């Protein structure tokens, strides 16, 4: 055992229950000064609950927290920041019309006599900090002009300027591309050298091995183990998380690939041009590329969410146009959007209502909904997709991210489409649910659907696809066949090189 002073944060015996659910039971977490400490666990394992307890959003039912050797207890994030703990949330909500300087000094503005803002001084100080981080914009730039990665960087800069000794990062890379991720990692290393400790929550194993020093694993609200990352393997961590060995990470089964179902020719729209491809019955077509390379934009346009400028689409050999998602769904083209919160569910409504929403026209009895049939079929689909909820009458809010995603997939599964487009189907989803979604994709393909999957995770694209299309700056830059991956002709590096524009 190390001496006590080595730890900047010690959580002991923390328990927290919500209603009847025990979210945390007697967990511990020890973080050392100047280390990057990974927190690993499936969705619902209790990671977020513990973090929210640390920054004072929740009050623990039992247990104690020691920060920098002193007992620590705060009533909310503001007090936590004052004590030296900042959290960078997964979903960033910047105020679009604030300037960078105003964002950084929000709620601790420079004032003259406590009333009037001293903008000049504030901008000067902000510029100083921004310079230190080599930030490409000045303090007067509005937040709305920044990319998501830059907004996140501002959050980090803000935390550092508040003199945070511990920064909690919740899935910081979930919406970053590889280049932005690299930049984030550089910043993390710099912070580490300055003695700042970081708690790093992520589902991406490779990142954890790259950037973190130690890891604590949680499962079902309990603490499993802490260890140095040099001493464990990926498989060991996964089995700690799920309590079982996940034998096959990608359950891709080979199914018979039939005739062409859907074809696009020279499709051009906002963010993509001259895209041509076809997808066959029973095929899983992977789409790879950097964030912003036009992958999602193409699919959104095909689904009727965005406009197509030119080009044509063919379904079963017939030329079609999709003016709205309604038209696309009618023809049998469905899409699981990458933005689950915005395009996925009506969170206030029940699981049943969400699943049946696009499927109501086919389930009418006269003017009314055939509620008996709706209940039965939704229950069956939810069960088949192993949506974890006490009943399908519960609302979307009560579900974890992975289960919300399963509900979204369930509604399209019920629609039984010819072409199913999945945009980042496993983003922010825990390991168990991820494997289940992967098997579902195989089942869909086996049923004869044509599946199109966009993913930013190369191992996922490579593990699941029969064929991969690679995007670079709005254009297709190559196609890779499954044989080439299995035989090892095309490796991860080569695909990545194509994503960056290489041949």
């Amino acid at each position, binding site marked *: 055992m190390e001496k006590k002073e080595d730890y900047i944060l010690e959580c002991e015996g923390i*328990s927290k*229950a919500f*209603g*009847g659910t*025990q979210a945390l*039971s*007697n967990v511990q977490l020890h973080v050392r000064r100047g280390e990057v400490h990974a927190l690993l666990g499936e969705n619902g394992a209790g990671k977020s609950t513990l973090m929210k307890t640390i920054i004072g959003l929740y009050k623990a*039912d*039992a247990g104690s927290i020691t920060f920098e050797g002193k007992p620590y207890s705060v009533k909310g994030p503001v007090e936590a920041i004052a004590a030296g703990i900042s959290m960078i949330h997964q979903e960033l909500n910047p105020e679009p019309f604030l300037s960078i300087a105003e964002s950084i000094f929000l709620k601790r503005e420079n004032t003259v006599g406590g009333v009037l803002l001293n903008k000049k001084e504030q901008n000067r100080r902000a510029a100083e900090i921004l310079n230190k981080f080599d930030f490409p914009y000045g303090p007067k730039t509005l937040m709305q002009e920044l990319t998501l990665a830059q907004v996140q960087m501002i959050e980090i800069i803000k935390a550092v300027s508040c003199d945070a000794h511990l920064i909690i990062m919740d899935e910081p890379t979930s919406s970053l591309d590889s280049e932005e991720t690299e930049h984030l990692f550089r910043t993390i290393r710099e912070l580490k050298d300055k003695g700042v400790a970081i708690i790093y929550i992520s589902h991406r194993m490779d990142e954890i091995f790259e950037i973190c020093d130690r890891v604590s694993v949680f499962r079902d609200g*309990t603490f499993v183990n802490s260890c140095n990352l040099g001493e464990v393997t990926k498989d060991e961590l996964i089995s700690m998380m799920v309590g079982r060995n996940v034998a096959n990470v990608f359950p891709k089964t080979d199914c018979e690939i039939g005739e062409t179902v859907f074809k696009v020719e020279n499709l051009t729209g906002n963010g993509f041009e001259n895209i041509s491809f076809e997808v066959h019955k029973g095929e899983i077509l992977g789409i790879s590329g950097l964030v912003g390379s036009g992958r999602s934009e193409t699919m959104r346009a095909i*689904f009727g*969410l965005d406009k197509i400028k030119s080009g044509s689409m063919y379904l079963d050999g017939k030329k079609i146009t999709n003016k*709205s*998602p*309604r038209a*696309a*769904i*009618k023809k049998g083209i469905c*899409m699981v*959007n990458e933005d689950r919160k*915005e*395009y*996925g*569910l*009506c*969170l*206030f*409504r029940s699981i049943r*209502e969400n699943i*049946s*929403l*696009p499927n*109501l*026209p086919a389930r*009418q009895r006269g*003017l*009314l*909904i055939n*509620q008996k049939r709706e209940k039965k079929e939704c229950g069956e689909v939810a069960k088949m997709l192993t949506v974890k909820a006490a009943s399908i009458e519960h609302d979307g809010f009560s579900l974890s991210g992975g289960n919300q995603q399963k509900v979204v997939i369930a*509604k399209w599964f019920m629609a039984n489409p010819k072409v199913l487009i999945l945009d980042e189907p496993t983003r922010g989803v825990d390991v168990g649910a991820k494997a289940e979604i992967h098997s579902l994709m195989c089942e869909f393909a086996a049923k004869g659907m044509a599946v199109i999957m966009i993913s930013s995770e190369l191992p996922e694209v490579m593990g699941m696809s029969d064929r991969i299309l690679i995007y670079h700056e709005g254009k297709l830059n190559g196609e890779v066949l499954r044989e080439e991956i299995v035989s090892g002709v095309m490796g991860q590096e080569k695909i990545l090189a194509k994503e960056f524009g290489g041949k």
Partner: protein
Amino acid sequence: MAVKEEKKVLGVDRDKFRMFMGKYGIGVVLFIMIIVISIMEPAFRSAKNFINVATQVSINGMISYGMCLVITTGGIDLSVGAQLALVSCILGQFITNFGVNPFLACLIALLASTAFGFLNGFFVARFNMFPFVVTLSTQLIIRGLAQVISGGNAIPLTSETFQHIYSSKVGPIPLPIVILFVVTVIVYIMLHWTKFGRYIFAVGGNVHAAIASGVSEFWTKVGAYTISGLLAGIAGIIFTAKTSSAQSNIGIGYETDAVAACVLGGTSFAGGVATIPGVVMGIFIIGFIYNGMNLIGIESYYQSMTKGAVIIGAVLLDMVLNRKKG
């Protein structure tokens, strides 16, 4: 593992208690109100008085259902009060001055209010304008039109056939209550048992998700506002039959009572959450506030103040019980 704590309230499991109160809390408020007023004023308890209240609330009830649909799509309809005036003036002009058959006149009036409802929906859905702004403006247009039609004067309505809409009875039950009952059942079925109702919830709950699920935002919103116009029209007919006089200055502030009934009944201003049984209870709470205070003999100035206080209190109670945002 820590032992799951069993917390009890009034001998019932706390979670179950909270779920019960979440669903029926407003009903409990209504029940307590009835008991309290009954103790203070025995005349309140009579069947005659209850029928009286139900007849009075039929007008606000009709408006409230339309308002409920519109609020559930994430909007608001401020034009309903003016719609009452327009319908009234059309009826007066056509029946008294033109001698048109009362039923035909009612049909014309309903067409007009429905058309304005459609117009509200069209502006909101097609141009993505704020419902508050659209209906605030059309309200002025509609009331102005009512004044033009009536020439600013009250037109007496002496047609007995027309007056019967308010005064005739089915057995012991006045016709307005029967109409309210029928409309309640229809609106209930529409919101809870049809595709259109689901689309209203979906558009109000998460418009992007609704569109991505193949729901037409345009037709759903237009539908809700159009129905609100139609129901305001029916309310206008009942109101005019009650007063036997067509006036362009009626219905002022009626949107407030309708919104109040919706909010009391658990309709969320954020959209996507509402139940018709809830709104029914909201309508009756508002009715009992007026009626109870009239019986007890409280001046109308204080009635208005009490109404405001009761609404804030009831919504606050509902939020505490449900632990949700209003």
